[in-house]
Structures are given as C-alpha cells and as structure tokens.
C-alpha cells in the first residue's frame, strides 16, 4: 500500500524563537527524500516537531499521513500512524532492554528475538549488544545501528533520519544506507533523511533533495542538487533571516 506524508506551512517555535517558518513538503511511500541545509536552518527542528518532542511548539501548519492529521496526536499515536524518528543522539534508558521496549511498542514477543537477531546481522551489530540496556554502554556508531534494529522491527511507513551520518565511519554508513534502501522495497518505507553531508546521499540515492534555509525550503530538485551544494555551498540558497 502506498501512503503520502504531507507537511504544509509548518511553523515551529523552540525556546520562544520561531525556527520553522512555513515549511511544506510532500513525499510518498518507497521514496527517499533528503533535507539538506546549514546548521541552524531548522532541519532537526522539523524531525523533532513531527514526532512531538516536548521542547518544540507548533504554531501553525499541518502534517498528515494519508490525510490523517498527526499534529493533534500524542507522540505514541504518531508512531502508531507510521512515523519513526531515528535520532542523531538516541537516549540512554538504563534498566530497560530493547526487547521490552519493542514489545511495549507493539512487536510480537514470540518472533521478536529472531527478528532482532536478523536485523542486527543485517546492520552488523554484535548480537550480544542487543541485551544491553537501550543505548547504554554503546558507542555512537553502535547506537545508530541499534536504532536501525528498532526501525527494522517496527517497520514504520515513514522513517525520519536525523543526521545519522554524523559520527559514522564510511563502512557503517554503507551498511546503514543499504538497510534503508532495502526498507524502501521490503515494506515500501518512505525515507526522509536529514543531513548536511553528501556522503550518505551517494548510497541512498534520493529521489528528491530539499534545501532548507532559515526555516523554509528554498530549493527542491533531483540528485544533481547535492552536487551543486557540494561545489558551491549553501550560500547561494541562503535567505536573509526574517
């Protein structure tokens, strides 16, 4: 089944400051979109606002999956509608194992263990790390792989990746990108990757690239846009802050 994620006129405030100033974007299942932009342009704000992070206040706008409004929903309900954020710095949850997290998130306990092992193998995460508490005593790279295990088990309709390339070495990046590409065909997962490096995009081959500056999308194009960005930087897209 194909789904549509639609973000319209999204305005978001963080700590009293408007960071997203009317961002709009539409994507479909199975597509890979990338959001690029300089630091402070609002990329991470988008990811956090979409998933209902308590520090982000939506001022205006709409976010829907198949015309179902997400912004009035709790973070739990949004996840159950099929949205999942893979974090740049996932939280440590001492005393809680990934298995129990995933069962509480709705995974079938009967098959969960083998699914986790399978995902760990695909993402090249040492299986014994699955038994650690969520993100506790894991390196930065292992945490991102552990997030990918959750993604593979939970199979969201749309995956938001918040700068997962930061702190990953080239090999790890390859494995993560391959898993995401496979997800787009395995369950038709839509991937929205936030990054300011082109490296990830070489493997992810996005259908669309969106450039964000000062809280808005200022350019949208095909993969060639990444080449332009790498050559000329973000300056040509930069708008004067309002």
């Amino acid at each position, binding site marked *: 089944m194909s789904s549509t994620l639609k973000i319209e006129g999204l305005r978001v405030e963080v700590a009293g400051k408007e960071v997203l100033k009317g961002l709009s974007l539409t994507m479909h299942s199975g597509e890979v979109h990338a959001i690029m932009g300089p630091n402070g342009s609002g990329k991470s704000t988008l990811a956090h606002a979409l998933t209902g*992070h*308590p520090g982000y206040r939506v001022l205006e706008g709409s976010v829907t999956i198949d015309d179902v409004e997400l912004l009035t929903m*709790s*973070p739990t309900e949004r996840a159950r509608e099929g949205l999942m954020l893979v974090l740049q710095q996932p*939280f440590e*949850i*001492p*005393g*809680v194992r990934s298995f129990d997290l995933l069962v*509480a998130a709705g995974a079938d306990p009967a098959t969960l263990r083998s699914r986790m092992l399978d995902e760990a193998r695909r993402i090249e995460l040492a299986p014994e790390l699955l038994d650690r508490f969520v993100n506790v005593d894991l390196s930065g790279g292992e945490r991102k792989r552990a997030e990918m295990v959750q993604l593979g088990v939970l199979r969201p309709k749309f995956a938001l990746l918040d700068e997962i390339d930061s702190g990953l070495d080239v090999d790890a990046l390859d494995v993560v990108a391959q898993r995401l590409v496979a997800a787009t065909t395995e369950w038709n997962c839509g991937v929205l990757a936030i990054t300011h490096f082109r490296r990830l995009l070489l493997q992810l081959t996005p259908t669309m690239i969106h450039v964000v500056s000062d809280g808005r999308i200022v350019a949208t194009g095909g993969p060639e846009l990444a080449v332009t960005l790498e050559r000329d930087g973000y300056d040509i897209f930069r708008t004067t802050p309002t």
Partner: protein
Amino acid sequence: MNAFAESASTFIADQPDAAARRQAWSVFESTGLPTTSDEVWRYAPLGDLGLERFEVPIAPAPTSDSAFATQLSERAGLVVRVVDGFCVSTGELVDGVSVEIDESNESLAGESLLRRYESDTFAMLNAALAPSATVIRVAAGVNVAEPVIVLNESTAGASFPRTQIVVGRGASVTIVEYFEGGADALVVPVSEYRLDDNASLRLITYQRLDASAWHIARTTGFIARDARLHQAIVGLGAHYDRSRNDAELLGAGASNELRTTFLGSGDQIHDFRTRQYHVAPRTTSTLLSKGAVADHSRSVYTGLIEIEKGAKRTDARQTNHNLLLSPTAHADSVPNLDIRENDVMCAHASSVGPLDELQRWYLESRGVSREDAQRLLIQGFFYEMLSALPSELAGLVESDVTSVLASVAVVTS
C-alpha cells in the same frame, strides 16, 4: 493506665529476666516518645501513632503465610518462623548453622542492649518487650549453600522481633529477614549482625507489612577484619516505615555494601537513616539508596558517613536518588559526612526529580504508550537495585516489586 502500658507490664512480669526488662521500660518511661522537634524524628508523624492503643501479646497469634512467603520459603535451605516477635519454629537443622532462642538481653556488641541503645526509645521498648532474641549462628569456615529465611509475621498489637546473626570466621551465608502482616500493628524490630574475620553475609531485609502498620526498625552490623556485609533493604509496606541501619567497620579491610530501595504510595512515609562508621583502616562502604514516591507519599533519606581518626585509606561512598511520581509527593535527601582522618576517599551525591521527560518521549516516539513508558522507566530506575540481589532470590523479589510498581499511579504536573 492505657492498654499498651498495662499489657507491657503484664508481659514483663511473666519473663524470667523481668528486672532487666523493667530497667529498659523505665528508660522508655522517663524519656517518652520523641517529638518532631527532635531533628532525627522531624518527619515522623508520631502524634498519630497512638501508642496506648497497641496491646503487647503474651503469646503469638495464629497466622497463615502469604503466597509470597510460601514461595520465599520454597527457595530456602532453612526457614525460621517468628510470629509477633516469638520464635515459633527454628526450622530443620542445616550443617554448620544453629538457631537458638536467647533471653539474655545482650547485644552482639558485647554489652547489654540497655547500654547499647539507651538513647533510642524504640530500641528500649524492644529491650523491654521482645519475647527473646532469635540467634542464628554460622560456624567458622562454613559456606551455607541455600538461603536462610527469617519469616517475621505480625498480627494486630505491638510486636518486637529481635534477631541476631553471627557469621563465624571465613563463613558465608545469605539471609533474608522478611516482614509481613501487621494490619493496624506496631512492629519494632531490632536486628544485629556480627561478622567475624573474613566472613561474608548477604542480607536482604524485605519489608512488606500492611499499609496501616507502623514499622520502626533498627539494624546494626559489626564487621571484623576483611569481612563483607552486603545488605539490600527493600521497603514497600507500612504507613510509617522507619529503618535505621548502622554498619560499624571495626576491622581493617572490612566492607559494607548497602542498597536501600523504597516505594511510597498513598500517604506512606519512608524514613531511611544510615550510618557507616569507619573505625579501622582500609575499610570500604558503598551505599546506594533509590526510592520512588507517588500520590501523597514522602520519603526521607538521611545518611551519615563517620570516619574515625586512624581509619586511613577508608573509601566511603553514598548515593541517593529519588523519583517523584506525583506533584504532591515529596522526598528529602540529607547526606552528612563526619571525617576525622585526612587520608580517605569520600563522596556523596543525591538527586530528587520526576521521570525524565525526554526519555519518556523517546519511548513514546517508538509507539510505546505513556503508561507503558512510565512503567518501563520506573522499572529501569529500580533495576540496578534488584539485579544486585542474590541470584536465587532476585527473580522472585523482582517480580513481587514489579507487581507493586504496576499498581502505582504516575501523575505529571
């Protein structure tokens, strides 16, 4: 005369050592109950105690074990049963372990209870009114394979269990002191643990009394050279739950690890006091206290690390973390240090706060419901306490604590 004084007097008159008991009683009478103006009783609602309403039993009342007590007993090599402070069964003999009923009114510190605890009103009541001490001795060099369980059951009225545990040189044992029952009762246990050189005692004190009970407990460990006292104290029950726990590190290389876990709900008060008294050099104490308070409950943690001159290279650490599960719950944390030696390592840390909002969001963003996210975080908070229990008992205690945790409401402000 009130019911308490009258029944106490009847009880004492019947005892073989009535004179010593009368002495303890008169200390109690002359000092009376503490008041909240006394700093160490500041948080105790003693005005609501109504001591005069509690009768001192002259014999144990009939009781039946809870399902948990039964399960606990099944895991034991030896079960000692104490009802209303009376040792009713010393269990079946285990090699190297003896259980005796002792009426001597002596402390394991080598002096009378009266002298030892003269400044402690409730301990004086125990000295006057405990039917006897249940003394468990592990012979030198014996490694007791299966846990020893002391099942303390209380019925209505006032009861004064007294337990003394002596672990001989080089011996090792796991002992559980378990408390249940006690609806509308006052339970005042005094426990002492003496560890001879190089002995090891793993001790779990599990307090699961009725929510109407008053529980005012005192424990003291006397730890000789290279001996190790590992204590876990879990307080779930009682209306007012006070537990004072002292460890005296008397021989070089002695160590005490103490983990206290408590959970408050309704209008419970958990009042935990600890004192790690380092006398000898190279002694170690590691204290971790973790508690959660819900509804209108409150907790107090007061810990003192005391280091004598000469206790060189002592390492003493004290940590207390408190979780507030409702805006009307309250936790106080008061760590204290009293150090009279320079060559020591000492650290203390404490925190009081609600569940972490971002951790909760992280779980919710995976599709976990708010309720489940809170439950997972609370279980996670207590995990390190429960996981440190001896393996043969950890599963049982963990599932019991988890079932209590599941019934606690989390209210965010």
